């Protein structure tokens, strides 16, 4: 066979620049940024900042303490009403009566204080009770009687307005002549705390409590759930009626709070009190980014929208615009905001998808020779073509294989099962555990529990009796990283150190098990090495930004952890004990193929599975990120260029991880995509990610009593061989 090797590496300045250019990707940052929920209201936020900036720059003394206090005092009430509207909108409803409730409660507060001469605390409670009662009526009608919120609250609005006009006509003259005085009342209306007006402070407190309530409490989550999908919420056991009732009562309460402050501030009830506030509040919350469809929003967005609307109205007034023009302008803004809301909600996911994949440049050095008959330790041969067959057609995708002390063979399959083969010829097959996810790397701990890395779930264990228990499914979150990367997405392979610590690899944090190929096409350091400490039950990331870390093996002497980087075709060693503790070094820099699992051998060396052999075309593509990007964008997935995973081999490494010999199936018909192998009592068992069989070959000259478990925990630990000094080719860190 003619072997066309990739060209010798060119190390020019241009390549170095390209390396840098593709390592940091603005698109990557953007895609992560866009997927954050707090990025949703970025447009209203910028608008708000721009408005404040504009008015500060153009209006004299705009930012003076006096004017700021004045503005805050004016703003607080509409702010509270907007938050009220926000809550109802998030629950999937609408409350058009907020302005009317505000007016009525304002009147009620004045009547209670000025006419009935109640003490201020009683006035406050009474006012809130009135607001809550009106909200209760709305809530019963909408929640329990299933009335449409729009019509219901419109009717409430009309009735309340009529009642307000009737009552205020009767009482208004009395307020003017009333001489009731109260310091507390005046403080509510005009006082400040630390320079902040009372009502603005109340709004701030409401915002903070409201935020915690909505985003951190069970009731808040229920509101979100009901707003997102009422049916799904009901199926999840949420009492939808009660939640809806609660939001309308909450809305009434917040409006009443606003009414109370307004009463204390103005001491009068004009007929236009709260007129049109429902439109202002609605414009505000939609502008702030609370979805009209429900289920999406925060109190901050309501407040932000309210600020924008308030500043605009304020600005229009200063510009000398007529009232009706102001309303028309607001209407136009509402229209634009609603349109944007719909488009944004629909297309954000697509925008993220469009820029999510970000290939980087990866240049591999020339691969060592695999030519048949050559002196290379990797030289191709046919030693796997005579492999015995275990479980042909009975197993789908045995990624990793392992044997226990009773010579039973375990493997994880693509169905999410752990299968067990037993009997002299492994003819008895049983489902040992139904785990779910995609079981990958396997290892036995000291107590003979089967510990399993599960793509999509984390690290799980199975007791000898077949009971599944969770070991860990998250690690510490990386500081300064936008995306929460604490969840384990693709735990790949693991091994257990003498002290019981579990070292495992997470192949990628940006893709899932079913899209591992995308990670290859991206070629970034998306993976990491993680350690679980059973003593403290903590999980910590120990090495970040690895390129698809895959097989993991604790060295025979227990002093270091060996692991491979699949896309870099490299074996690395991380010292966990001894003088080099904490250091990372590259042990084998260039493999001829893509390494997968790594396991101990009986002679003190190691076994390494090469899932595939590097093809020149793929190597070239890895140096061409733009080509790969075009590829994923322009052609279907089945047509993508893949790493050559149809053929691979098993490599025997010595104690220093240097290659000694290989076992090949060059046709790829029996053992394509070899992802694992395990030595047990003189035999080597071979698994493959996409195979329908497990293979077995006899290892002449291997210790016939050696088993993996004995090597880790039993009487074969003395086969530990210290690597000779200077085994590392180069120190990485």
């Amino acid at each position, binding site marked *: 066979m003619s072997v066309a090797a990739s060209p010798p590496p060119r190390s020019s300045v241009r390549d170095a620049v390209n390396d840098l250019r593709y390592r940091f990707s603005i698109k990557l940052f953007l895609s992560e940024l866009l997927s954050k929920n707090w990025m949703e209201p970025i447009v209203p936020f910028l608008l708000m900042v721009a408005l404040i900036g504009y008015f500060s720059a153009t209006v004299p003394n705009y930012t003076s303490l006096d004017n700021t206090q004045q503005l805050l005092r004016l703003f607080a009430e509409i702010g509270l009403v907007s938050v009220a509207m926000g809550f109802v909108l998030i629950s999937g409803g609408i409350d058009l009566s907020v302005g009317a409730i505000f007016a009525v409660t304002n009147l009620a507060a004045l009547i209670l204080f000025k006419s009935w001469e109640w003490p201020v605390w009683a006035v406050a409670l009474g006012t809130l009770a009135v607001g809550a009662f009106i909200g209760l009526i709305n809530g019963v009608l909408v929640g329990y009687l299933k009335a449409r919120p729009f019509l219901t609250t419109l009717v409430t609005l009309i009735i309340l307005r009529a009642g307000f006009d009737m009552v205020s006509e009767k009482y208004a003259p009395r307020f003017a002549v009333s001489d009731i005085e109260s310091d507390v009342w005046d403080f509510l209306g005009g006082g400040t705390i630390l320079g902040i007006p009372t009502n603005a402070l109340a709004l701030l407190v409401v915002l903070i409590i409201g935020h915690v309530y909505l985003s951190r409490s069970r009731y808040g989550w229920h509101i979100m759930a009901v707003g997102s999908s009422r049916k799904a919420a009901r199926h999840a056991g949420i009492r939808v009626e009660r939640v809806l009732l609660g939001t309308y009562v909450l809305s009434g309460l917040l409006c009443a709070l606003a009414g109370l402050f307004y009463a204390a501030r103005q001491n009068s009830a004009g007929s236009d009190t709260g007129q049109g506030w429902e439109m202002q509040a609605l414009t505000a919350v939609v502008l702030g980014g609370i979805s009209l469809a429900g289920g999406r929003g925060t109190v901050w967005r309501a407040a932000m929208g309210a600020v924008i609307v308030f500043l605009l109205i304020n600005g229009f007034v200063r510009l000398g615009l007529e009232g009706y023009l102001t309303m028309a302008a607001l209407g136009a803004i509402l229209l634009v905001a609603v349109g944007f809301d719909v488009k944004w909600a629909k297309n954000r996911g697509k925008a993220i998808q469009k820029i999510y994949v970000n290939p980087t440049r990866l240049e591999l050095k020339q691969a060592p020779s695999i030519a048949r008959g050559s002196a290379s330790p990797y030289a191709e041969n046919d030693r796997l073509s005579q492999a015995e067959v275990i479980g042909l057609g009975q197993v789908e995708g045995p990624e990793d294989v392992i044997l226990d002390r009773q010579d039973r063979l375990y493997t994880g399959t693509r169905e999410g099962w752990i299968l067990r083969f037993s009997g002299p010829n492994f003819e008895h097959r049983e489902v040992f555990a139904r785990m779910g996810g995609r079981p990958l790397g396997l290892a036995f701990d000291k107590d003979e529990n089967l510990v399993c890395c599960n793509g999509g779930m984390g690290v799980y264990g199975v007791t000898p009796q077949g009971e599944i228990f969770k070991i860990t499914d998250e690690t510490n979150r990386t500081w300064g990283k936008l995306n929460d990367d604490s969840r384990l997405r693709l735990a790949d392979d693991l091994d257990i150190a003498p002290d019981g610590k579990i070292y495992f690899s997470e192949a990628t944090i940006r893709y899932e098990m079913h899209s591992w190929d995308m990670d290859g096409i991206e070629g970034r350091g998306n993976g990491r090495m993680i350690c679980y400490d059973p003593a403290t039950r903590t999980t910590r990331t120990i090495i970040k930004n690895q390129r698809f870390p895959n097989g993991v093996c604790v060295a025979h002497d227990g002093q270091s952890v060996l692991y491979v980087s699949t896309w870099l075709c490299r074996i690395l060693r991380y010292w966990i004990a001894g003088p080099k503790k904490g250091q990372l070094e590259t042990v084998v820099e260039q493999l001829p193929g893509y390494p997968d699992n790594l396991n101990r051998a009986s002679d003190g060396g190691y076994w390494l599975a090469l899932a595939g052999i590097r093809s020149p*075309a793929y190597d070239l*593509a890895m140096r061409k990120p733009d080509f790969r*990007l075009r590829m994923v964008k322009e052609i279907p997935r089945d047509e993508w260029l893949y790493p050559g995973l149809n053929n691979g081999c098993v490599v025997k490494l010595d104690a220093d991880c240097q290659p000694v010999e290989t076992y090949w199936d060059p046709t790829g018909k029996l053992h394509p995509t070899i992802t694992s192998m395990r030595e047990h009592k003189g035999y080597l068992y071979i698994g493959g990610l996409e195979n329908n069989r497990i293979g077995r070959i006899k290892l002449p000259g291997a210790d016939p009593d050696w088993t993996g478990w004995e090597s880790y925990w039993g009487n074969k630990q003395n086969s530990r061989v210290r690597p000779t000094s200077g085994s590392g080719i180069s120190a990485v860190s």
Partner: protein
Amino acid sequence: MAFYSHFLRNMEQIFFPDRDQHAIPSMDGALSPNGKLDAFTVLLPDLTDVDDVAVAPDGLYVSAGRQVVHRFGPGLGQSRTLASFDAAAGALALHPDGRLLVCVAGKGLAAIGTDGGQRWLTEAEGQPLACLTGVAAAPDGTIVLTDGSSRHRAADWCRDLMEKNAAGRLIVADAGLATARVVRGGLAYPHGCAFSADGRQLWFTESWMHRVSRCASGAGGLAAPEVLIPNLPGYPARLTPAAAGGFWLPLFALRTHLVELVLRDDDFRRDMMLSIAPELWIAPQYASGKSYLEPLQGGGMRKLGILKPWAPPRSYGFVGRIGDDGRFLDSVQSRAGGDHHGIVRAIEPPQGLVVVSKAMGQLLQAPAETRQ
């Protein structure tokens, strides 16, 4: 760059919606994938390196390696070497006067008389005929040749494709091979030609443009060609008139999205041609699966012991029969994972359909039960 070319393409689609996108057409109807070609059996296994075959009055003429062999007698058991050259013998055609026309790589056209005498045509209008891909003779004795490319020999067709050349010619010579003139230049690898049964039309294929054209042929020479099949799903090879009317049209490989992408991406293609051996390029091939260093595509991953037949084919076997209107009537195919790939010629001797598989380098014949 990627963004820019993407943008240009989008703009083109907006402003010229009717312009030919030349996207790979789907294979349905008479083109629906089947495995009928896999059932073909090897004919004359002693012949290797076969490039073309022609029907002889009493058997077959076969160009195998550097020789042209005449096989005749019962079971085609008797053999006679008609001619030997110092370069590979290629396309064949039988002249109405009984001479056999042979395209010889890098040389030109040889006309072999019944007495064994050779007459050569080595150039047309001062240009050598180094890449002859097909030859046909009209009933009146006029000879038509397709010269694939002026830049590469026929064995280097893959490089010609990857360079996106359109340097082929259609050449007409008189029966005595005294004069030859170029009637059409700038063709994208013309790859075989044939006269219709009545001799009044010349059909020819252009591999890199994936199309079949025809032109009226008469006393005044060849008329301007008319594109009959504008967009094939593969690369057409040598046409042969079918007994039941129409033509046999082999596609020696199918187009794949990945190859089309590589053809659009100039930077990648240039580096690929510079740094990788041609047999490992992302390009169509006569045969595949010979080396695991070949590029692998997603659908080609072996799963649960099976290579999916729908995997993107690096090589493929396809022979279709087209009617006089250029519509496909029927096809026999060998899909991904099969061996009977790289079909460049299909002929219909009395014993049934016989095809030339470049992947095998051998002749294949239809299984007995399907022979008429």
